[in-house]
């Protein structure tokens, strides 16, 4: 069918095309302007190096992916209840928000060593950094979405003399879903960054470690290869969140399509 074909082109070929175009442009710029290799290497060199390292990189990618997803999961598990508390109680909102903002403003690179000291060298510390970085947009966006429930829907739901929980599950949360997903989209990329920052500080696995060590050893090709993989992972994770959004709230996604 031409319609679904053009849609496939739009949804998959176009983004891929853009990325490829950027790489080509970069390669051309590299050659024309003779950019020194240690500032940025050429995409061709990066890809060659990545290919050479493919098996080992895959292992490191898994580690980072695991930390990212675990941190992301944790930030949903913590972020949504926090958003609920904030929306349901102005008192808690005023008490919690400053604390939450503090967790955001403390540079993770600065407290990651402390986390490392407390949580040890394993994946837990990276997971926690990913969580700390990622949960904030989930809280803010979900809270905004929950607060935006039209009053008549709340009245409707109240008219059943039902529990707050039920109102939440059946009315407020479904209504807030687009904004919850908006928070998730920001959070998933932040979780990835968080995992990488955690790896920078203390890990000998993961793409963050590869970037750090490759940079330290002046293997810019490899460092950028890891960055490529990271970007690819981010795009895929982001697309997956968008896909889940489309499945979970088709009524909303359909409108967005128009």
């Amino acid at each position, binding site marked *: 069918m031409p319609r679904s074909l053009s849609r496939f082109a739009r949804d998959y070929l176009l983004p891929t095309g853009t990325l490829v175009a950027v790489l080509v442009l970069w390669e051309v710029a590299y050659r024309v302007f003779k950019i020194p290799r240690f500032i940025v290497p050429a995409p061709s060199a990066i890809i060659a190096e990545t290919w050479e390292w493919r098996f080992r990189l895959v292992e490191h990618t898994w580690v980072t992916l695991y930390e990212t997803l675990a941190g992301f999961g944790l930030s949903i598990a913590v972020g949504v209840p926090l958003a609920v508390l904030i929306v349901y109680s102005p008192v808690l909102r005023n008490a919690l928000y400053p604390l939450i903002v503090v967790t955001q403003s403390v540079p993770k690179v600065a407290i990651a060593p402390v986390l490392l000291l407390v949580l040890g060298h394993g994946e837990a510390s990276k997971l926690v950094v990913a969580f700390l970085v990622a949960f904030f947009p989930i809280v803010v966006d979900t809270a905004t979405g929950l607060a935006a429930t039209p009053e008549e829907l709340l009245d409707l739901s*109240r008219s059943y003399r039902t529990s707050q929980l039920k109102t939440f599950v*059946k009315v407020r949360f479904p209504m807030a879903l687009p904004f919850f997903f908006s928070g998730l989209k920001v959070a998933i990329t932040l979780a990835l960054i968080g995992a990488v920052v955690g790896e920078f500080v203390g890990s000998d696995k993961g793409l963050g470690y590869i970037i750090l060590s490759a940079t330290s050893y002046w293997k810019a090709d490899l460092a950028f290869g890891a960055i490529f993989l990271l970007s690819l992972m981010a795009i895929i994770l982001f697309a997956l969140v968008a896909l889940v959004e489309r499945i979970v709230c088709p*009524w909303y996604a359909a409108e967005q399509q128009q």
Partner: protein
Amino acid sequence: MIRLEKVDKTYRTRRGDLVHAVADITLDVRENEFVTLVGPSGCGKSTLLKLVAGLVPASQGTIRVRDEVVRGPFPDVGFLFQHPVLLPWRTVFDNVMFSIEMLGLESRSYRARARELLSLTGLAGFDTKYPRELSGGMQQRVAICRALIHDPGLLLMDEPFGALDAMTREEMSLELLRIWEDRRKTIFFVTHSIPEAILLADRVVVMTPRPGRIARVLEIDLPRPRSVELEFDERFKAYSHAIRSDIFAPRTDREYATLA
């Protein structure tokens, strides 16, 4: 069933001014009675209904339902809002079932009833559509199904047939009467249509413009079961005339003084 005593409601708007919506309402609605409420737009009919349902707190006076003071929503009631208020992410069928889910009743035993109500209201074949895909009148009918499905003992209905054409409206009115006679419910019903108010009611409550007070409570002494032909009955015409004079009289020289 419902007992209002000197009920007063004043809203505070966002800018901080006060709007005196209803004043000094004292009214009794008996068990199984069908009471309709008419009055000019903005006189506080919806407010009164929400007060009874416990959705809005009274500024003064007390409201009792089933001998208990109303402090918030209570069970075994069906509330129909003036706007349809459907959930945009649910299909028509799931919107009707919403009541069942919210009340924690067992869905399975109500599915058949939901379908029956949908076809009774002319929505057969639309169960899998979404609210956006319905006409205004169809949305209102979905809301009616939702208010009826759990068969509540008390129905509070705010202009349920406002968006319906003359014929659908008559059909739905008669259907509502049938349900009411079948299952003996108490119904408190706001309408803009004077004939509808008379056709349905045991008593018609007429309100004055804002702040809404009770101008008159009219016992409708017409035989039941009723049918549309009653409109040609002389008593019907007399009731109609009485209500019209109540509503029309005070306003022409008051609020609408600006009108040519």
